[in-house]
């Protein structure tokens, strides 16, 4: 028997994953600033405090570093904290505990400890948050051995990936793009997991491969629809997990389409695009390329506040269409 499927919002899907994990396993708890009665800065934890109590949905003092350190300490005892940051920008404060501690403890202590910690954080621009509430720092975390980095696109994946992240014995950084919270999609009831090492081909196409995660995958799909009306068939691959990255799926696609465009919101240089492009350039798929690899990334500036500036600072659907056109028509 398969579970009934309903339409669910992205934020509700995350909340449902948290509720399932907490109901199943007493070791799982949620912590963060205003996650309790307030329901979280983006209303993700919602009514969890009413359902699970204030000692399992814990309002923390405003200290991201303190919270991360406490979460590591609790995780070392076998508890499974899910730590919410109000904005991924505030992860800069928690870096020591995430990068130097959570990521490395298993290794440094000879495999004798586990840090089963999930850090959830809203990422990206589009809501007028300006320079310190809009960053896309995925590549920072993806650079750190010992961490896994997840960025879902659909409510279905948000739920399944979060359950997998909570199950995982190692620290997982879970990025949630703010523009996705209000999007809806089909989500089965009950428990299921989406594995933490597999990309998803969201649209098949023969003319070029577009790799994009999170809200950029949505934009790439919108761009693909426009391109299709011009006779260009784009294949859209959503990595879902940035570390470890499922390069085999990307390489297989590129081998067929011979053209690769990578779209991401973080600053263009030293980002996700560089990693994917380099991995293709190093491998067998390179020989199948008919055009240089293109990257479409964010401007090399902090994210400005004013709407017109903010919009111009990150790739939009029309930018993806234009880049794909150039690539497909051999103008790149």
């Amino acid at each position, binding site marked *: 028997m398969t579970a009934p499927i309903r339409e669910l919002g992205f934020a509700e899907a995350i909340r449902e994953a948290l509720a399932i994990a907490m109901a199943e396993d007493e070791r799982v708890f949620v912590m963060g600033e205003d996650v309790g*009665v307030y329901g979280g800065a983006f209303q993700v934890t919602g009514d969890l405090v009413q359902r699970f109590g204030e000692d399992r949905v814990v309002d923390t003092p405003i200290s991201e570093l*303190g919270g991360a350190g406490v979460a590591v300490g609790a995780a070392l005892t076998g508890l499974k904290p899910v730590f919410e940051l109000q904005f991924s920008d505030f992860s800069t404060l928690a870096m020591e505990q995430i990068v130097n501690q959570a990521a490395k403890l298993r290794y440094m202590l000879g495999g004798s400890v586990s840090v089963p910690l999930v850090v959830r954080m809203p990422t990206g621009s589009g809501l007028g*948050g300006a320079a310190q509430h809009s960053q896309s720092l995925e590549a920072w975390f993806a650079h750190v051995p010992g961490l896994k980095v997840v960025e879902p696109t659909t409510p279905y994946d948000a739920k399944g990936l979060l359950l997998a992240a909570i199950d995982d014995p190692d620290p997982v950084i879970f990025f949630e793009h703010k523009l996705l919270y209000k999007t809806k999609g089909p989500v089965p009831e009950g428990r299921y997991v989406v594995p933490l090492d597999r990309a998803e081909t969201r649209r098949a196409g023969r003319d070029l491969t577009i790799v994009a995660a999170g809200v950029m995958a949505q934009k790439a799909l919108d761009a693909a629809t426009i391109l299709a009306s011009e006779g260009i068939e784009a294949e859209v691959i959503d990595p879902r997990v940035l570390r470890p990255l499922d390069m085999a799926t990307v390489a297989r696609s590129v081998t067929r389409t011979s053209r690769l465009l990578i779209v991401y919101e973080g600053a263009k240089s030293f980002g996700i695009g560089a990693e994917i492009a380099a991995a293709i350039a190093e491998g067998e798929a390179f020989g199948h390329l008919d055009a240089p690899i293109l990257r479409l990334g964010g401007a090399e500036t*902090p994210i*400005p*506040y*004013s*709407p017109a*500036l903010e919009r111009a600072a990150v790739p939009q659907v029309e930018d993806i269409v234009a880049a794909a056109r150039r690539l497909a028509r051999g103008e790149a």
Partner: protein
Amino acid sequence: MDGEGTLRLHIPGARFRPGDRPDFSYLRLPPAGAAPRPPVDAPAIATRDLAFGLVRTLDDDGVAVGEWNPGLGADELVRGLRTMALVRAFDERMFRAQRQGKTPFYMKCTGEEAVATAQTYALRPDDMCFATYRQQAILVARGTPLDEMMGQIYANALDPTKGRQLPVMYTAKSRGYFSQSGNLATQFPQAVGWAMASAYRRDTRIASGWIGDGASAEGDFHQALVFASVHRAPVVLNLVNNQWAISSAQSVAGGEESTFASRAIGYGIPGVRVDGNDYLAVFAASRWAAERARSNHGPTLIEHFTYRAAPHSTSDDPARYRAGDEWERWPLGDPIARLKLHLVRAGAWDDGRHSAMLRAVEADVAEADARAQALGVHGDGPHHDPLTMFDDVYKDMPWNLREQRDELAALPGRAT
């Protein structure tokens, strides 16, 4: 052993939630005039009790009593009253502007106007302030044109951040006002660094740093106190305890076990807890701390005990987490009403003058808003050419930014 058994985790919370009837009788509020005022060169240890008491000057009848009465003249007090009323009118107007869609965001300081107003007048005009988003009164007290502040909120041509910063993230170098940070608490150590530099340069200006009760949990707060203590930085460090950090009561920041002012004691810094709704008390404590700093006796931590009457911001709905009438039941009252009563009692003010003053500040705010809106509000821009977003990342634009700017400029149909 007694009480031993399995361990229990303490979860602090708010005393009152929606539906409760708030009763603040548990607060220990010493009477006005009770606190002694040590000399400004007193050693920190001799000021210890100030961190646990409450400096108050205005009694229930509005009469100023005790050693902390700063003895200000009526003109000075009326100036303070007017500035507080102006700030409140400004807040009301900009809150409405948000509801009317002219800005996506605004933050009020209602109920806390005395804190920043009185301190600003206790400082010299060129002392440097590192504020949070709730000390707009500093800018108003220093005479910043209101339309400039509104222009920042509307992100129009008057916005000194060129459309780059969130509404209320003002900056005004010429008025000794740094800016706010999106990430809380960072200004606190910066204030200490500015003060240390002022001492290093043998200047005479001091700094004033600000933080909220909630944000005092951040490392920056504690690190600022360490550096301030180690180098006896000439800085007034202010912690505004307005009882709330969005939905989290001050107990979540550690206010249940001790006072915030008492944090200072372990660092060898005087901690002064002051009735933040008592204009004269805030002025006196600020003046004491400023004199101390200016005469090389080092930093002071002032805890301003007050209440956040408004929602955290326009995005917030306090009905979700606190009792609706807490503010009405707050035992320390409204700073504007209390200063008004004092002036009336002293024979320097009356209802007629007060109403006229309120009408005048509202008119000032309305006129400033008309001037600001003439240059556009948020959303009816762009007020700044998107190409300008590449400016000021560095002093000199490197090749990669020039390249991105040129790509943007070459786009067909580019909005300007």
